[in-house]
């Protein structure tokens, strides 16, 4: 009993240095959250700025126009996050079937090249998209030559299916990269299990269904839950480069909205306030999801 306790303390001592790092780099700077309660604007010091209480927390909902805008922004955020959650199994299945490819050089090739888009910055992705989809670009030229259309289609300017298109871009860019995690998880499966199944006469489909997928499902669930808790953050770079005045109504997600709103020094307090709200939502969601996980899978994920 006492020995166990002692062991517990010793194990804690092992991780203590890392906990200290976390405290310094992630928790200590949180004192900066108090900027959200002031009209802060550099280069003034905080003490020279007026204390405004919760002003910035209800700034975005203090009249009808803003409420309407915020509603649309949240709708977009839910839509785009929802789509990626709905298809979150894609990288996993990508990895599973990739693993089934027998020709190893080809497998390696596919695995390598599908990570390439991850390295192309969004700015450059947009330049390429523009070259391909502009009024005289390859796609329009092909369609016109084929007689399918007679006026160029303004793909990038259209406000239709924006969420879906954004999801497609994101999948193209990230699927191969995200698959790496699942490939690792698959490699971690005990080969003896698979060999045993094969000896029992299971075809590949059955092996996948009964062995591969159940083995990597824990990884999938943990990642899914971690992402779910983060659904308010879509990042903004992708949407920033693809936004224009014609599609903005459907592309403006929360992160981009805050960026556009809080540009320049004067927006620092507002951006901080929204950041706090987002964190609170995420942490609450995390706790709820953990409960859900406990109830359904019998174990929490954190």
């Amino acid at each position: 009993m006492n020995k166990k306790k002692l062991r517990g303390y010793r194990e804690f001592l092992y991780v203590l240095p890392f906990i200290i790092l976390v405290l310094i780099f992630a928790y200590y700077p949180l004192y900066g959250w108090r900027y959200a309660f002031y009209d802060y604007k550099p280069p003034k010091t905080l003490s020279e700025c007026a204390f405004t209480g919760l002003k910035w927390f209800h700034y975005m909902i203090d009249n009808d126009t803003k409420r309407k805008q915020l509603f649309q922004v949240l709708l977009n955020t839910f839509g785009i996050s929802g789509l990626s959650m709905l298809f979150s199994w894609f990288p996993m299945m990508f990895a599973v079937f990739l693993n089934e490819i027998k020709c190893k050089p080809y497998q390696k090739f596919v695995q390598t090249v599908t990570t390439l888009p991850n390295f192309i910055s969004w700015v450059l992705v947009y330049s390429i998209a523009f070259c391909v989809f502009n009024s005289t670009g390859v796609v329009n030229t092909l369609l016109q030559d084929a007689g399918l259309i007679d006026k160029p289609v303004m793909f990038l300017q259209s406000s239709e299916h924006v969420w879906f298109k954004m999801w497609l871009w994101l999948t193209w860019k990230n699927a191969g990269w995200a698959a790496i995690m699942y490939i690792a998880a698959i490699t971690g499966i005990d080969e003896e299990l698979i060999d045993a199944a094969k000896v029992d006469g299971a075809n590949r489909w059955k092996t996948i269904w009964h062995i591969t997928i159940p083995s990597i499902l824990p990884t999938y669930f943990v990642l899914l839950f971690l992402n779910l808790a983060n659904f308010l953050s879509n990042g903004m770079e992708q949407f920033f480069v693809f936004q224009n005045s014609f599609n903005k109504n459907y592309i403006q997600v929360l992160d981009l909205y805050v960026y556009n709103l809080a540009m320049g020094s004067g927006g620092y307090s507002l951006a901080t306030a929204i950041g706090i709200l987002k964190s609170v939502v995420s942490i609450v969601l995390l706790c709820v999801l953990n409960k859900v996980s406990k109830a359904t899978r019998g174990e929490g994920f954190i």
Partner: protein
Amino acid sequence: MSKEPKVKAVKKKQDPVDIVMSVVTYIVYSFFAFVCVYPFYYIFINTISNNDLSARGKVTFIPIDIHFTNYVNVSNIPSLMDAFRISVSRTVIGTILTVFASAFLGYMFTKETMWHRKLWYRLVVATMYFNAGIIPFFITMKNIGLYNSFWVYILPTVVSPFYIVLCKTFVESVPAELTDAAMLDGAGTIKTFTAVIIPVIKPILATVAIFSAVAQWNSFQDTLLLVSDTKLFTLQFTLYQYINQASSLKALVNSSTSAASLAASLAHAATATSIRMTVTIVVVFPILLVYPIFQRYFVKGIMIGAVKG
């Protein structure tokens, strides 16, 4: 080595479902591979084609007027080699430390016996979901002496909750007998970690290594904010500002009062897209070179039985 005969044995009795699946898989993956390769190929041929044509979107399938001035220009950026050294250093050191910390913490957080284990684990995971803002972060860094220090590239990312979660999930899938056996043999926590856990979780360590190496290699925000000492500039940062130099001309235009000289400098800078493309190729190339090293850990399956025995 020992697997080969087994695989061949299985191949002989191919199921029709398997064949259909193979064909479909090949087609789908070839398509996906093409969609991923083409843009990269597109970027590459544009960097070696006539810049005017490429700016007008005329180079789509084959390079035209092949030249290498873009690469020469990039290689002429002053102190590129120093920046390269810094980038390699931060990538190597940062990755080693991050991988070690992720593996170790991922393992330690599976230990039910640890004093307040859940609290510490949650404390770490929660950091994924908040961000203090850049001003307090900057001031903190300055106060603890990391401003203009090489370690500003390394220390803040050593404990990365996402990688820890990945490692922990993986460690949990390792059969308990394995560690129990080691413990019974008298191995301590550390010994079990190095002798039993690390060999088994190598695939996920390779993943973490790739992720964190690429993140380190690509990062320039930290240099931007926290480093003004030019000796510590990284390759990515040097290239980033080379790109930006060409594209942040709006302010230049709005502030200058001499139209004629301005016009000249603008025309000079108008090939930003080619520059951006060249930089992309230059940056990605080293990553592709080290890729196979990591990949080795993915194609070999783990034989837990072999470790056990």
